[in-house]
């Protein structure tokens, strides 16, 4: 190093310093990522590629992470479908009064972000005689039911021919054998194509890290449904699969004060849902799109 301090040397040093600084700056997103994503998270395989042991390891890691980030001990299970069960849901629009109890029950059951009061259900206030759901009003705030209106709760229709799963570039969302369309929140890249593809506005995007006080967290969680979602992923109604795959009724149904909701196994000929499908004049939303929803609506006639 017997170069004299020339202009050339000074420029070299300056260049090297700037280069190192730029390199460091370029890497900073990775550093920030490591604060929200553990190595285990980063290396995790797709849900359907996990063996049972690997799945269990993932569940324990997610439980630990929930404890660290939210200060609450929770149980996260991998609840699988039952053979011979296909779910369907029906909703009686003559009986629904638009009270939004189902919206609130979903919010609580599924560990939604508290500040935005997120929920998988929106209730549309519709003008009697109209069936155009795009003209429905979700922001009504007056005594219900209002004169000349009917109320139509809309959530994921669990389509048999779902447009949302087809547009996913990474196969992070798919339809399960019991008909429920699920998301692997750890595989989702947050591109929101599925949200755009859904004709029912049923998918939600986590713009922020969900905020829930520890005391309000529902500790009964499952991997594919109500565990607290990470920031930057899409979420959706799963017919409360952590409840329904174990034979229980979904939270929105139990919350309904008028009994407008009917849920069950459509393959069971003696089920309530089958009776409704066979005896009521049911219809589906946006039938012309060919999505073949598993969610039906009907009026009493």
């Amino acid at each position, binding site marked *: 190093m017997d170069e004299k301090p020339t202009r050339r040397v000074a420029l070299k040093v300056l260049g090297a310093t700037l280069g190192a600084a730029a390199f460091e700056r370029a890497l900073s997103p990775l550093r920030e990522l490591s604060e929200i994503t553990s190595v285990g998270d980063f290396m995790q395989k797709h849900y359907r590629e996990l063996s049972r042991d690997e799945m269990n390891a993932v569940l324990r890691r997610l439980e630990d992470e929930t404890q660290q980030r939210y200060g609450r001990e929770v149980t996260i299970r991998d609840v699988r479908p*039952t053979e011979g069960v296909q779910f369907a849901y029906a909703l009686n629009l003559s009986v629904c009064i638009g009270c939004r109890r189902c919206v609130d029950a979903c919010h609580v059951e599924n560990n939604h972000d508290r500040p935005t*009061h997120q929920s998988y259900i929106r209730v549309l206030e519709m003008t009697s005689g109209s069936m155009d759901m795009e003209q429905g009003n979700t922001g009504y*705030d007056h005594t219900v039911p209002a004169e000349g209106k009917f109320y139509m709760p809309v959530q994921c229709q669990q389509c048999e021919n779902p447009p949302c799963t087809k547009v996913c570039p990474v196969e992070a969302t798919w339809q399960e054998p019991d008909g429920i369309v699920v998301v692997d929140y750890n595989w989702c890249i947050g591109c929101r194509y599925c949200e755009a593809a859904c004709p029912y506005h049923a998918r939600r995007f986590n713009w922020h890290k969900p905020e829930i006080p520890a005391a309000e967290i529902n500790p009964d969680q499952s991997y594919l449904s109500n565990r607290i979602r990470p920031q930057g992923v899409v979420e959706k109604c799963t017919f409360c699969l952590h409840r329904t795959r174990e034979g229980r*009724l979904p939270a929105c149904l139990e919350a*309904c004060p008028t009994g407008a909701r009917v849920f069950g196994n459509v393959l069971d000929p003696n089920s309530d849902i089958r009776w409704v499908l066979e005896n009521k004049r049911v219809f589906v939303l946006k039938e012309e799109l060919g999505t073949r929803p598993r969610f039906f609506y009907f009026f009493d006639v």
Partner: protein
Amino acid sequence: MLPVACEDPAGYADRSRRFADVPAGDGSRHAITVHRPASLSGIVGTEQTPQGQPVEVSCATCHEVLRPPPELPTSARTLGGPHSGLRFEHGSNECRSCHDPERYDRLRLASGESVPMTDALRLCAQCHGTQHRDWLHGAHGGMNGHWDLTRGPRLRNHCVDCHDPHAPAFPRFRPMPPPPDAPRRRADHG
């Protein structure tokens, strides 16, 4: 249109993870219980116990001892005692349309059969047949518990849980708050 199948089951690397291991049941089913509303066995007074609980008086407290007067009043306006001020908005019915004029703690069906208060469901069903039919098939009235009775029981609401038999129209009330991002007049995107 081409049939659209569910996702390829081979998509699971571990085939045993495709379905849950549900032990085969013995064919037994859990019960469907109908909730029994307190209002069918007594009235809730406006007075409170020292603990702040509303006082509940069973029908029998008065109606087992008091001999009923020979005729039921025809209108709620003439009612006195614990029943005064009763709001009655249930069509053109009179008290004896449902209540047994011989035994005030019981109801009377159109057939003349006297039934206990707790059998009110049979009484309601006489006129509200379509609602009763829907209720029998789980398509009217709220419930809790299990859709799958092989795994657990179900609790059904009684007519009187939601409808006041003297003024049965479902009350209007304020809904839960709207979503904060909801535009006032349009269905919105998440």
